[in-house]
């Protein structure tokens, strides 16, 4: 029972999938499991700070930085997003129904000592610097993920 581990790869940067990821992660931590979340590709957008952080970037990296959403409030939903309107409506209805927000879930994940890891290769691809991501992250690659997954009995790719 003790020392059970769960890992989640958060590949998607869609609001709905991010919420699902964090619900499973916090739920698993509440069950007493040690949880690690790996954020890769679009999933990194969930971890971006909301405010603009001035860092040196190439032209392409600047384009990415402009076009990709900055943090949990800016994410779109995977279906019926309608240029962001869908995400707004979704957040509105979730608030009315008192559903926990993604921001609150991220805070809860930190409180539950969930390990959040940013994939450094994806950071390179998208030109995202450590300074642009929220505090309290670890940085690693595929071998670290596989080592964790090997010891875990729940491994999800979202």
């Amino acid at each position, binding site marked *: 029972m003790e020392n059970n581990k769960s890992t989640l790869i958060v590949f998607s940067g869609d609001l709905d999938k991010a919420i699902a990821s964090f619900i499973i992660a916090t739920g698993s*931590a509440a*069950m007493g499991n040690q949880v690690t979340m790996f954020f890769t590709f679009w999933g990194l957008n969930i971890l971006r700070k909301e405010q603009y952080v001035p860092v040196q970037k190439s032209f392409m990296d600047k384009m990415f930085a402009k076009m990709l959403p900055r943090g949990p409030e800016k994410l779109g939903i995977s279906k019926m997003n309608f240029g962001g309107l869908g995400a707004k409506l979704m957040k509105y209805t979730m608030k009315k129904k008192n559903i926990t927000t993604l921001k609150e879930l991220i805070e809860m994940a930190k409180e539950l000592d969930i390990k959040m890891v940013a994939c450094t290769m994806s950071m390179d691809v998208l030109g995202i610097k450590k300074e642009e991501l929220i505090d309290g992250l670890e940085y690693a690659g595929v071998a670290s993920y596989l080592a964790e997954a090997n010891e875990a009995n729940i491994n999800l790719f979202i």
Partner: protein
Amino acid sequence: MNADKVLDARGLSCPMPVVRTKKAIDELKPGQILELHTTDSGALSDIPAWAKTAGHRVIEQSEDNGVYKFWIQKG
């Protein structure tokens, strides 16, 4: 039933009832009892499932006007 602690999780949605219950029970000693109030209907199967996995025991539960109450003994 006498509880050592009461947790009001009414109005909270999944996964918060389970997460808050975990945090509350962490503060108790083994054998002590937590009384939980929640309005999440999913808790009916979630709380027993959580207790089983986390090693605690649901000793009593009831429903009163849409509020589900659980008495959980820390394992």
